[in-house]
């Protein structure tokens, strides 16, 4: 299990991570989402033992990560800006990783390379962005590391490969008890694959929830009225987002579902129904709720 307690990290005057606490159970896929500059990559780097925390602790299976080689041998970090040796091919990189990860599996490496249809003798520098990502994922799985820290993993992957990676991650979790932590802006991908999602904003964890249940206290309701609905009609409930398309109104409100539905029914809608909230809508609603929204971008 990964435990983060009271984590703080600043770069000069800029606070990247502020008093963050989090627990990620082993064998689950954790999605890390957040606004630009929220501290996702910084958090991953701290979890990978690259940065030393200013305050707080990051422990994996009860041991601190920073400069702990026993832990880091069970951890594989893929940066959002992938690095590989300039003139190396996958075979040479495999030889390199084999020096570092004692359990590195040549079988897994060969199998995955074949499955992804990557030429291991070809220079990685000649790979496309997506192929490079695939190559790094192959190294990650072949390393047999139990914790995978993946920054923008789906970036550059085509839809087929996205599905393949998702499947790979699912197999890793189910068969090998791997714990992937994925930082991404692709909420759609995370929604499909993650067990839990953490929402970061300005270095703090705004939301940490189970994706399956979406027990967030937020409800999306679609309804239609005889005339165009007004936001003021619902002042007694906490509306996070409100949108009219003709007489069709879609709103996201926080609070008790019954109370929200009662407030809507009081206005005698032609119809009103609760519809599922997507992760993206949840993200946007939550961020709007804390004042992070598009402001006057379109003048």
């Amino acid at each position, binding site marked *: 299990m990964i435990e983060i307690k009271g984590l703080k990290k600043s*770069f*000069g005057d800029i606070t990247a991570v502020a008093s963050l606490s989090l627990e990620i159970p082993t064998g689950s896929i954790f999605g890390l989402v957040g606004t630009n500059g929220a501290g996702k990559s910084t958090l991953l*780097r701290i979890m*990978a*033992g*690259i*940065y*030393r925390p200013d305050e707080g602790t990051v422990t994996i299976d*009860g*041991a*601190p990560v920073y*400069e*702990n*080689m*026993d*832990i*880091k*041998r069970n*951890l594989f*970090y893929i*940066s959002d*800006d*992938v*690095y590989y*040796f300039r003139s190396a091919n996958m075979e040479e990189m495999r*030889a*390199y990783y*084999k*020096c*570092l*990860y004692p359990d590195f599996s040549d079988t897994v490496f060969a199998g995955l390379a074949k499955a992804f249809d990557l030429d291991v003798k070809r220079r990685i520098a000649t790979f496309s962005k997506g192929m490079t990502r695939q190559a790094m994922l192959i190294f990650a799985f072949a390393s047999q590391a139990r914790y995978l*820290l993946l920054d923008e993993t789906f970036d550059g992957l085509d839809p087929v490969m996205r599905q393949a990676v998702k499947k790979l991650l699912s197999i890793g979790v189910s068969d090998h008890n791997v714990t992937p932590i994925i930082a991404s802006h692709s909420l759609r991908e995370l929604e499909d694959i993650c067990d839990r999602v953490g929402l970061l904003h300005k270095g703090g964890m705004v939301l940490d929830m189970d994706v399956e249940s979406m027990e967030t206290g937020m409800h999306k309701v679609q309804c239609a009225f005889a005339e165009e609905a007004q936001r003021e009609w619902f002042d007694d409930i906490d509306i996070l987002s409100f949108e009219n398309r003709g007489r069709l109104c879609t709103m996201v409100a926080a609070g008790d579902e019954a109370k929200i539905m009662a407030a809507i029914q009081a206005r005698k809608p032609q119809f009103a129904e609760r519809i599922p909230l997507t992760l993206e809508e949840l993200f946007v609603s939550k961020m709007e709720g804390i004042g992070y929204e598009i402001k006057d971008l379109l003048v």
Partner: protein
Amino acid sequence: MKSKICWFNGRLFKNTLKRYWWFGFLVFLTSFFSVSVSSAVLAANAAAQQAANPLVHTLDDLLAGYFMGKQFIVTDPVLALIFGAAAGLVFFGYLHNKRQADFFHGQPVSRETHIFTRFAAGCALYAAAYFLNLLFAYVILLSYGAKAAVIGFVLLRLLLVLLVFACMYALSILCAMLTGNPFAHLQAGFVLSFGGTLLMYCLYWMAETFLQTYSPISLDGLSYGSLPVYLVWRLSSGEFNLLNAFCVVVILAGLLALCVIAYRKRPVEFTGGMFAFPKLQPIFRAALCLLTGTLLGSVFYSVLESVPFCIFGLILGAFLGHILCQGQFNRSFGGMFTAFIPFAATAAALVAVTACFIMDVTSFERYIPAQTDVRCVGITIEGDEPYLRRTFDENGNVISHSPLETVVFDDPEVVGAVLDMAQSGISAVEGRKKAEYGTSSKTYTIRYTLADGKQVQRIYEAIPDATVAKGITTLLCADAYTAQNDLLRLDVSRCGNMSLMTSGGNDSRSAKDSTEKAQLLEALQQDLVENGRPVDTLPLGSVACEFFGTMDEEDTESRDIYRYMEFSVYASYSHTLAVAESWGVKLEAMPEETLANAAYVCVRDGNQYDNILFETDDPEKIRAILQSGQVFGVYGGMTLTEPVTVEVLLKDDEHGMSLEQMEKEGYGYRFSEKMAMDAFRSTSFVGYVNNQYSVLLGGLDKLGVVIPG
């Protein structure tokens, strides 16, 4: 749970060697020219020289000399320095790149493992590439007929160069740890290389000045200005021994320990910036200002010889260093011209410290211990020495090369003379007096050993004049003593010209062939052994003639492995005098033509140089004096225990050179009125002066010396 620290990863080491093979190849290519090709050329030249003169050289010795000689000493360590600095940038460049820093620090490799594995890989690649070329060179030497024993020099050279490389590499790694980008890395290298040494030099100066704790070890090499150059100097000046090697290894270990500490503390997130430790920025800025200021101030001072210009240079240099730093800190042109208070403080401190040095406010330069406190003095002469002095073992093999040899004097009278000379040197500096062109000034180092065993060392320039004649004599005695040292270890195969000359120069004879060289060499060596070799020469009266010799060939361009020897042959040197007699050298009588040519003789007190004891132009008296055996040449007139110095004016110049010719040849300085006075007063040897030297004679007149006729 905290994992054990891993210092080395063998598999990673091998992988690193594979990845950086090109670095080794680059070293190999460079060394191929500096070692292999160079050896082939030198060996071919040596063989040609031997073929031309088989008596003078032995191929083995020449090749061994070349191997430890100037070319290798200078070229290889300098290349090792360059490659050491480059290795730090190549193997630890990932610290200056965010992507690479993330990549390497995200892996299960500890900081310590990174350092030692990469350090070992760099050293191994360098050593392998260099050693391969040394082997080539060795095979080349063997093919030219060198003895297999030359391998000793090959291995020693490998060790020397590797140590230099490793030290510079470690220094460069430290720079990588402290900085965030390659440009800052290079600047830090400059500051650490030169600033550290400057600091050590200041500490040394302060310790001697304020604490009076004389340094037990010689730090004079620090004046070379930088740690790397100091290392090269220390290791390749012939002073290399196990203790020095150990000291260098300790320095290396210290640097690596600093690297480990800095790496552990290094915040990776500052990669790309100027410094990994922002708190170091003001310190670095001050250090760079001090260095650039000192550099420019020194240039202005040495070129323009003006204190105001020196101060201007100090401030200008400090300003340039300051704006360079500020520009990088702020990453903008406008940012260069900020933080002027720290600049003003640094510049003021620099000017103040420099003023202290120039004015010698702590009397550091003027310090001369009381004679009663001095147990002995060691004199090391520089200036007219050959580039390298070779030392041989009992088998005649070269065991070291050094430009210097120190001779120790403990005779109180000699010590007193040396202290007087030191005082004269200080006075000359204070009076900004310099040796005139053509004056045989000498730069020398005096190391005082005090009664309590402590040592202190100063460097002076001696301007020969009457007041320090005895001290100058001591210098020449030291020179003669070292010449005797060389001759004792000389093998006839290395003998160049060898000759005996009477002290007055009235007769001389050179060895005609190798048989005569061997005869004279053996005689001299026997005499030196049987008579002992007192540091100060024997009484003047016992000097019979002078020995002049050279060993090895004279290479006028490089002055490499060339040594000129001269010292007095005393009356007690029976073996040598027997050789002289068998050669027909007229030791006693001055030739009749010289006697007939003598117009004036002046006899001076040897210890009170200005004190003219006797002078005459009476031919009979002159003849009596010159035939008395009391007229001696260069060294005869310089001995401490000499009773007199005799000067002879000849009617005709020895070489028949006219005044106009002399002036044309560049000897004109002798004939200005002032210089005539000075030249005469400072003449520390017997000179033949004819009546055409009217100005000089006028000078004599002004001195109150009546010139007959």
